[in-house]
């Protein structure tokens, strides 16, 4: 029942937003048509200049260099964790590992 009312609410919402979506799509289509023609001519000029519009950007090259450097310099480190942050794997010695410490008392 909840899903039916949710679908009904969405239906009413989309009926009102449909014209705006269609207008956005029409404007986007016109813009993309010009974008495509522009990129087409850019690709032709780049081709005769011995280049390609699909070449890596300077940022991509820099990023690749950084990743390569990290791979070479730090073989024991994994580069990225699940959330995109750099994770450093640490080897914990037996003395430092709290699970191996025995209660002296």
């Amino acid at each position: 029942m909840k899903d039916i009312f949710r679908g009904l609410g969405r239906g009413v919402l989309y009926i009102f937003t449909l014209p705006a979506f269609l207008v956005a799509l029409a404007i986007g289509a016109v813009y993309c048509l010009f974008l495509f023609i522009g990129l087409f001519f850019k690709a032709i000029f780049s081709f005769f200049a011995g280049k390609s519009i699909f070449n890596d950007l300077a940022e991509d090259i820099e990023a690749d260099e950084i990743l390569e450097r990290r791979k070479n310099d730090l073989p024991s480190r994994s580069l990225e964790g699940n959330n995109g942050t750099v994770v450093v794997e640490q080897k914990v010695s037996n003395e430092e590992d709290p699970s191996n410490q025995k209660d002296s008392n």
Partner: protein
Amino acid sequence: MAEKKSIFKLFANTETSTRSKVIWTIVVIVLFVVILLGLIGYLIYRLMKWQGKAVDKLMYNVTVTRVIQNKKHFKKVADIKSSRYFFKQAWIPFVLMLIAALFLIIFYSVSGLWSFNIFSNGVADADGVIRSGGTGISTIFYSWDFTKILQNTDDGLLLNWPQTIAVPHFSAEAWPSYVFFVLATPGVIWFLVTVQCYLARFLRIRKLASIIYDKNLSNFRYDPNNPNANKPDLENYQQN
């Protein structure tokens, strides 16, 4: 003076039970259509979210290596990559549309039939229904007259079925229209899908830029007793 007719008299002369059944049927149909529209709209919304995820893939390396350090730079690079991705996706539908347009231009030029209508559906028979002839794509579709479905009579407003204007039929004269639409229709639909993908990425780029490079002062505290209070805190500083 004749009584003014209104749509509320649509079921004026029907039995009460029949009238309520018809009203309930209409209500159920309207609800069903609204729910169906909701599902289709939600499907498009989910599809656009999924299409926008391409930005994450395109911008992953340059973002996690911190090559890009501010919102403006992120948008610039992401827009360039999104445009290139669009070009890769759109060239096949663009070529289809181009071939269709060129075909029609060449046909008009060679035949000299500048009045050739790619939408016409033929000539009507004695009973007013079109069953043959025609040069347009409309020949292979039904056509109905919706202008006379509501009739204002003395008994009230009557709702009729629409009258058939044309029945589907193949016309040899319409072959250029068939060829044109066979090429142009998939081209246009495919192109619009790539445009939708581009718009989805456009929205995703703006959202990601505001999330990743968000300037948030909620956790910033100014403490005058701190010896470093007069020094700028640049640890978490973000440009733009």
